[in-house]
């Protein structure tokens, strides 16, 4: 597709917005990051919903072969490489996130999988944001936002690879922890404005900025 085709990410209109209630607090984090919390939206990427039998070795092997990442069969985990991540959403449901082209990835998967499977391209309907910053701020914002016990993941850097689909404000999101101590959030496009406002509100006490 040609380059003059305009694309908009779900948080397009929030990039560079910030919330900052208390200047004193900002000084505390006045080093390289001026805001204790930074929300960064990933560029437009591929999201596929993958359904199939996780107990079927052939299925798992074929997916791993195409993605270059093993299929997580343990509940609440994800695996990732530079090009792709695959998140466990349910016993027969995964979300793929990738920089590879959606239709060709779908085609390759379909070619290598057999039996009862389903693949749906949901790239237009999702976005991924990375939430990084001060550990206390991250912890508080996650506690404000979700009923899930992220404390059970404890030391995030040692336990990277956990993910969960749970509540986020009055919407929902997939949250995953990363080895650098930050978190990725994946949620639906139509809720993006709400979640952006929610994060700006929840992060206000620490200072929160959204960037592309």
């Amino acid at each position, binding site marked *: 597709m040609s380059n003059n085709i*305009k694309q908009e990410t779900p948080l397009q209109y929030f990039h560079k917005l910030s919330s900052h209630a*208390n200047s004193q607090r900002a000084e505390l984090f006045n080093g390289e990051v001026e805001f204790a919390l930074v929300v960064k939206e990933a560029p437009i990427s591929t999201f596929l919903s993958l*359904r199939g039998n996780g107990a079927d070795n052939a299925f798992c092997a074929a997916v791993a072969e195409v993605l270059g990442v093993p299929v997580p069969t343990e509940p609440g985990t994800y695996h990732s490489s530079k090009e792709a991540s695959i998140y466990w959403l349910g016993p027969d449901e995964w979300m793929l996130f990738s920089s590879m082209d959606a239709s060709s990835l779908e085609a390759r998967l379909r070619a290598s999988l057999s039996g009862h499977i*389903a693949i749906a391209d949901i790239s237009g309907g999702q976005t991924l944001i990375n939430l990084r910053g001060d550990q206390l701020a991250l912890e508080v914002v996650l506690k*404000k936002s*979700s009923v899930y016990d992220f404390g059970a993941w404890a030391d995030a850097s040692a336990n990277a690879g956990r993910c969960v689909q749970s509540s986020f404000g*009055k919407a929902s999101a997939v949250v995953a922890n990363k080895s650098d101590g930050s978190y990725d959030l994946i949620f639906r496009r*139509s809720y993006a404005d709400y979640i952006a406002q929610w994060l700006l509100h929840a992060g206000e006490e620490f200072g929160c900025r959204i960037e592309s």
Partner: protein
Amino acid sequence: MSQINRLNTGARTDSTSRINFTYNGKQMQGVVGDTLASALLANGVNVVGRSFKYSRPRGIVGHGAEEPNAIMQIGSGAATVPNLKATQVELYEGLESASVNGWPNVNFDLMSITGWFGRMMPPGFYYKTFMYPAKLWMTYEHFIRKAAGLGSAPVQDDPDSYDKLNQHCDVLVVGAGPAGLVAAREAARAGARVIIADEQSEFGGSLLASINSIDGQVATSWVDELVAELESFSNVQTLPRSTAFGYYDHNFLGILQRRTDHLGISADSGSRQRLHRVRAKRVILATGAFERPLVFAQNDIPGVMQASSVSTYINRYGVAPGNRMILFTTNDNAYQTAIDWHRAGRAVVAVVDSRSAPSGEIVAVAQEMGIRVIAGSGVIEAQGGKRVRRALVAPLNGDGTEITGVVEKLACDLIACSGGWSPAIHLSSHTGAKPVWDETIIGFKPGQSVQKERSAGACGGTYSLAGCIAEGASAGAEAAKLAGCGDGTVHFPMPQIKEFSEQPAQALFLVPHTKATSRAPSQFVDMQLDVSASGIELAVREGFKSVEHIKRYTAMGFGTDQGKLGNINGMAILANALGQSIEQTGTTIFRPSYSPTTFGAIAGADVGALFDPERYTAVHRWHQEQGAAFEDVGQWKRPWYFPRGGESMQDAVNRECLAVRNSVGILDASTLGKIDIQGPDAAEFITRMYTNSYLKLAPGKCRYGVMLKEDGMIFDDGVCACIGDNHYLMFTTTGGAAGVLAWLELWQQTEWPDLQVYFTSVTDHWTTATITGPNARKVLAKVCDDIELANDAFQFMDWRDGTVAGVAARVFRISFTGELTYEINVPAHYGRHVWEALIAAGEEFDITPYGTESMHVLRAEKGFIIVGQDTDGSMTPADMNMDWVVGKNKTFSFIGKRSLQRSDSVRKNRKQLVGLKTVNGTQVLPEGAQVVFDPEQKIPMSMQGHVTSSYFSSNLGHSIALAVVKGGHGLLGKTVYCPLADGRTIAAEIVSSVFYDPKGERQNVE
């Protein structure tokens, strides 16, 4: 007024740092560390309020959540807060406080009802009067309501914000007194995730007012060290100013943290209060105990206080609230107050001890100080007006039920009372644990645990400091172990503590008077609601027996203090009146909140813009830029109409509808639910869910379907397309999307797991731009060159993949307007691009964006229904004249089919969908108008149905309406009437529900 009662002894307050505040408009000073109550007492304030029913003057009696009288309005304007207890308000510079009752003021109250008039208002008097004449009740009530309420709610919006944290921990400790603190320390050391919360501004509980020594140091120093130690653990969260207000199922507790109230300013960052929603593996309740007041005549006169509160004011706040004190006690423990008072340099008139021969170690200490002890006696009445002036003391018999000698009058200005202690079992009671009466502690103890909790320390009936610490330590270690941390053994050694050994206390719940209870001056049980011992006895006399009845009849325990002081005495007086034991009588069930909890904090951040998510399509901003008006559809914001210039809504809708029929319009249909369905059994499954069959639907084809609930009633509708072999795309209504997906999953997962089919919501993936009208093809052709668009090549109810405006698209030729229509679906990040490309391509045809209102008009012209508007959960397909969509020959009994054969479903005069054409075509029937056959009949009229949809059709030049009318399908041509609330009656003719292009030829544009 100066701080006449301020002491210069070593309290927790800093007497050198002054704080200015106002009380009822008067300037006063307190010191850092004061509560409003301690500052008022320091300033010699006696009367802090008027009682609810009789407007009697009342003073401060307690020092915490138990306070019934010192109810204050704090602050002013938008940030005012009603009904705070002065004992719980930390003093800050500029604090404004005011009493909540009393007119014109608390010291001189014209509403005061004493003596005779008070006697006219026994419990239940409302029920017995104000009945005649009946029509005057609203007038009576008007005056009754004038006396209602304590403080005033603000009238402006709350300037503050609130938030919540979802907390999960291994061990939650409620209460940071001695038991709680050591429990938290043991659990923390075992590696548990610990939260410890306490309602007060600092941890320490009773030790903050203790002059005991622990391990050779002052108790408060021991506390400071312990708190510092706790704060050094990374696995411990300490929450001061945090009240656990409710204990809910499965170890979920609500804790309200007051973050800025003590600062006094409406904070400009962060939240005023924070609700911690805590899910704990184990809970340790270390909530302490409340001292029990003594019930004697006129025990509500200011200057009658709790003994432990007097000690707290002296030791913690450096305030001695009076000069000449009488201590009235039933136990050893309270002698400490006499000692504290004596050490503060004030006169102890006497200790009146109800026990005939008090002999505890501490009694001897007091006597050695020269304090007079009057044993075997009680204070039977307090006297005074706005302050106690004297006490009537009389000798009592052994069990405290009768006066046995001469009454002695003793002058005093303070009567400190202690009837023993009542464990704070509120939270344990919230769990459903049934409190048990324990004669040895003369109180209710927590019942058998029904949640994963245990009580430690005074709230479990253990009153010695050493006992509390030992119990706390073992509870902490045990809780950690049960949560999977540590081995359950106590790690830290017991501190050395010197305590007096105590002799048994006496149970004394109602101090006798020389007159019978019914005739004696009021002996108050529940101060806030003016419930007296005679009131309880009256209720029993009138036949009430159950403690819940008594509570409801007298209002005992319904106050904002929740009966923390009065309840046990009340139960005991009731038991006595019924001639049964307290155990038999039982106690009322405590319910959340333990202490009052701010609405805004319970609501949290989910108010205002965050009250409920607003869902937007990818084209939303374009709609906003065009000035669209929006309609709420479920959580979605959909463009309602696009007014141009100064257009009215009707003008805009007329223009939009004409544009669609005459040229081309464009609608954002992205909000429709879309479910991707794949699997070998997909067609079979879909066919079971819809009324019609999909077994023979070929790839590239679409079909309209209706879904029923198993009761046969329509619950959703939409088009379903066959995308490929074993692959379908189902469209749902906007509001029904989530429900339909859950419905499909329910049947597949639980009823037919053998059917191989997967469902995935793809609603958000697609932006759907619907272009409709005779020029729709011409517009599409300008931006799409890889789909053959000719009428016979790309037919009605077909779909094609192609490229639109350079973007891979899926185009459906279906129609909700009756015009030639293409629904163009592209991934949503291209949504705005494709939309704008279509607008540009349509410019020469004056392509007109239209909203949901025009969509409704256009479909109504065609007689197409909207589920949820034309149906209401009681409509079958046949009712909607849609029998054609029901597959009669389907082999499988699809969902809802059987219900269509029930006797009521085949009844002849069911309400059926028809069109209504008003006799006067300019009149538009209101939606919701009721249809009758005879407008002249008397009320109640026989209603035949109602108008479900109604519009002015600019295309037809007259109004149109859809209605459901009993037996309507057989009534074509009949004139019916809609009598309206405004007095008009509109006549209309029953016509076909299809008003426009009945043969459906419009969309066959060549």
